[in-house]
């Protein structure tokens, strides 16, 4: 057991009532975990990505969208009990009050606002500040303790304007009309956001999908997020020369892609900012489109919350904690198990 010996709870000392144990981040006075990576009795889940939303918990509390995504991905029996709360709706759990606030990461993503004995902790999950037509915008929640992600916690990460990145893609389609354009995207969030951006840029031809992306796109459409003419690549009668095809990153370079006409491999991710990362994946057209905060957004958000104490989770904690020191804030690296580089 990694759980520290129970110390007397001091509301002013956050580490006595909110800390990582072997399941994930545990809130003592509420007796629940936030985004636990193994099954627990009671979980609050920030969003539907697989490294945050796992099956097998006794009870799950999340936004209606996140619950619906979990059901689409893992079935309706993915937890003993599923409880939905709207953004801004207050729920009492044990001795704490829990509110979910929009995180701007993907559809249904939420920050967990925990109020206890006059102190407020905000666990942000994954978040971004850039506009995203597929989800509610990030909401700043003033707090005493802010728990932030640091996926892109290095000064090299500045995400480009997503519209400019989509322009690059459409330009390449015009430059190489005889080649398929195969875009690697994460199935939940990035896929649908990118389709919306492509549609907003005026592209109204069919967009072809790898089968693994289909269910979540259908779900987004059912949530009122129009994605235009989508078709399955497996139904195509030719090699889709000059067409846009979307697939999960793992299919970019494998046998699946052989059905396409000399494909230009495209990858939409915040990692594409760094040339070595793009080349490593054999990407021909890297697009810097991310659903995570970049370095300037991380710092601006920390400042916006007014928090005096900042805990930094998954990603490049070292640089961000160092930066917090330069800003005169108390930063602490919080090493949580089970976080992956998904959906960046």
């Amino acid at each position: 057991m990694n759980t520290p010996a129970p110390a007397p709870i001091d509301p002013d000392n956050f580490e006595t009532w909110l800390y990582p144990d072997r399941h994930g981040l545990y809130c003592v006075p509420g007796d629940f975990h936030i985004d636990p990576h193994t099954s627990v009795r009671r979980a609050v889940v920030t969003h539907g990505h697989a490294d945050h939303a796992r099956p097998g918990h006794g009870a799950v509390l999340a936004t209606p969208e996140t619950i619906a995504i979990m059901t689409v991905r893992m079935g309706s029996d993915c937890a003993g009990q599923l409880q939905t709360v709207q953004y801004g709706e207050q729920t009492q759990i044990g001795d704490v009050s829990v509110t979910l606030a929009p995180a701007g990461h993907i559809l249904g993503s939420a920050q967990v606002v925990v109020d206890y004995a006059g102190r407020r902790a905000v666990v942000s999950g994954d978040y971004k500040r850039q506009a995203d037509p597929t989800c509610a915008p990030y909401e700043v929640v003033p707090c005493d303790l802010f728990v932030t992600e640091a996926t892109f916690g290095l000064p090299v990460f500045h995400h480009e304007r997503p519209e400019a990145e989509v322009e690059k893609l459409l330009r390449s389609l015009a430059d190489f009309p005889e080649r398929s354009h195969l875009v690697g995207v994460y199935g939940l969030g990035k896929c649908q956001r990118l389709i919306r951006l492509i549609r907003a840029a005026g592209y109204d031809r069919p967009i072809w999908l790898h089968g693994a992306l289909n269910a979540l796109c259908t779900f987004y459409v059912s949530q009122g997020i129009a994605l235009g003419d989508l078709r399955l690549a497996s139904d195509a009668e030719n090699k889709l020369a000059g067409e846009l095809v979307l697939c999960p990153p793992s299919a970019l370079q494998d046998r699946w892609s052989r059905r396409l006409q000399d494909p230009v491999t495209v990858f939409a991710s915040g990692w594409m900012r760094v040339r070595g990362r793009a080349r490593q994946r054999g990407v021909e057209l890297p697009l810097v489109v991310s659903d995570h905060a970049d370095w300037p957004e991380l710092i601006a958000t920390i400042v916006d919350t007014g928090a005096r104490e900042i805990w930094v989770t998954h990603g490049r904690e070292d640089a961000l904690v160092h930066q917090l020191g330069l800003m005169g804030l108390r930063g602490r690296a919080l090493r949580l198990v089970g976080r992956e580089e998904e959906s960046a």
Partner: protein
Amino acid sequence: MKAFARLLDRLVYTPGRNAKLRLLGDYFRTVPDPDRGWALAALTDGLPFSFPVRRTIMSLMERRLDAELFRLSRDYVGDTAETVALVWQSSRTEDGAAPRLADVIATLELIDRNQLEPQLEAWLDQLNATERWALLKLLTGALRVGVSARLAKLGLAQAFDRNVDDIEEVWHGVSPPYAPLFAWLEGTAAQPDISGAPVFRPLMLANPLEDGDWDQLNVDDFLIEWKWDGIRVQVAATGDDARLYSRTGDDIGRSFPELLESFRFNAVLDGELLVVRDGEVAPFNDLQQRLNRKAVSRKMLDSYPAAVRLYDVLMLDGDDLRERPTGERRQILLDWYARTAPPRTDVSDVLTVSDKASLRELWSNTRGIGIEGLMLKRRSSPYLAGRPKGHWFKWKRAPLTLDCVLMYAQRGSGRRSSYYSDFTFGAWRPGENGEPELVPVGKAYSGFTDEELLELDRWVRAHTVDRYGPVRAVAPELVVEVAFDAVQPSPRHKSGVAMRFPRIHRIRWDKPAHEADHLTALVQLIAINASMNQ
């Protein structure tokens, strides 16, 4: 900088040759002078300057970013210039004006070294991340975007629907930013005048001799020469000026001052660059000591004396001889050489062969006497640029072969990115415990057909025993017959040997792995080679 940065950014990620040509062509067609000319210079012969950028940017960064944050960023990115390009906080707005490539070049040509840092800072402030990266690349003088000078010229030719050899022909008579060249390509001016200048004339290249060629071959129609193991060069001299060009038109004369000094004639000659000691051709390795040197020491000149073995003449005293038949040019070359005999040159012998049987015998003996093979030049052929079919043939000595066992496979790039197409193979040697073990002896990416590639790919996937990142280790069960041109000792390889030009000759689906060759077989081939070169 905008269009230039976009071009470099696309080129660096684009593996396909045709796609690169398209990107280059689009750039040359749409970008105005003189920017496109400077870009062409940067992609071909280089710009007339380079700067010690590293120190300058480090000094700039110290003032702009916390040292620890820079260190962490640098560690992550792996490249200092790219890190600077990424972390720089630019003040430029989306539509703000960025400096033009031509303005940047004009400033750099005149800049005082101690003005470089403030100027660079001002530019970095006006550029976006991709443009900052392109600027820093430009300053170092080496773009390294996977485009050779030749490919850039091909892109240029394609952009204006011209033959690349026409561009090569005038190339050394024009200089950056090449406005007259572009004007000619666009049809608004005449071809740049290169008469009287020691410019490069595109070479005539030979095709490998195929079975079909052999069947139709009549030995009397051909001049037959040894194929020399040196470097193909062109000597272009006007009497008071001389140049030495590589096969691709790169000016390599700087490394060979003693040759340029000797070339006091007015002619364009075709020949082989060799190191020759007391009339004996030294091994290729000796010639390599002389290549790509900016300064050549006295000792170098004495230890590795260079010479050109001539075999053709393209121009003589202002007359263009390229329309004349090969046999006639040969006679002109001999007559001229008898009169002038410039130092550090000789003429490649023509071999006397009476019939096909003796020609084949001559070829069979090439490896035994340490010769690379034979050249067969049709007597009636004019000197044609490029690699025209049916005129000149090279007949390389038969390759060596070895049965090896496939050990590792890696996926290729571009069109082959979903296929395991890069193979590492090994030979047996006694292991520590007495059991035979495999040691890698080489890598091959070619030699198989598309169908064979499919079969190999399937086999690799089905026989993977381990993975190291992108590399798959396979069960030691498949034998491939590897063909290679030569083998040399190499302390850098675990096996102690290195093959020259290895390729997969045949896949031996039928052969059990334990019957594959042993390392000793390769080592013996080195010994044989060494004794031949004595």
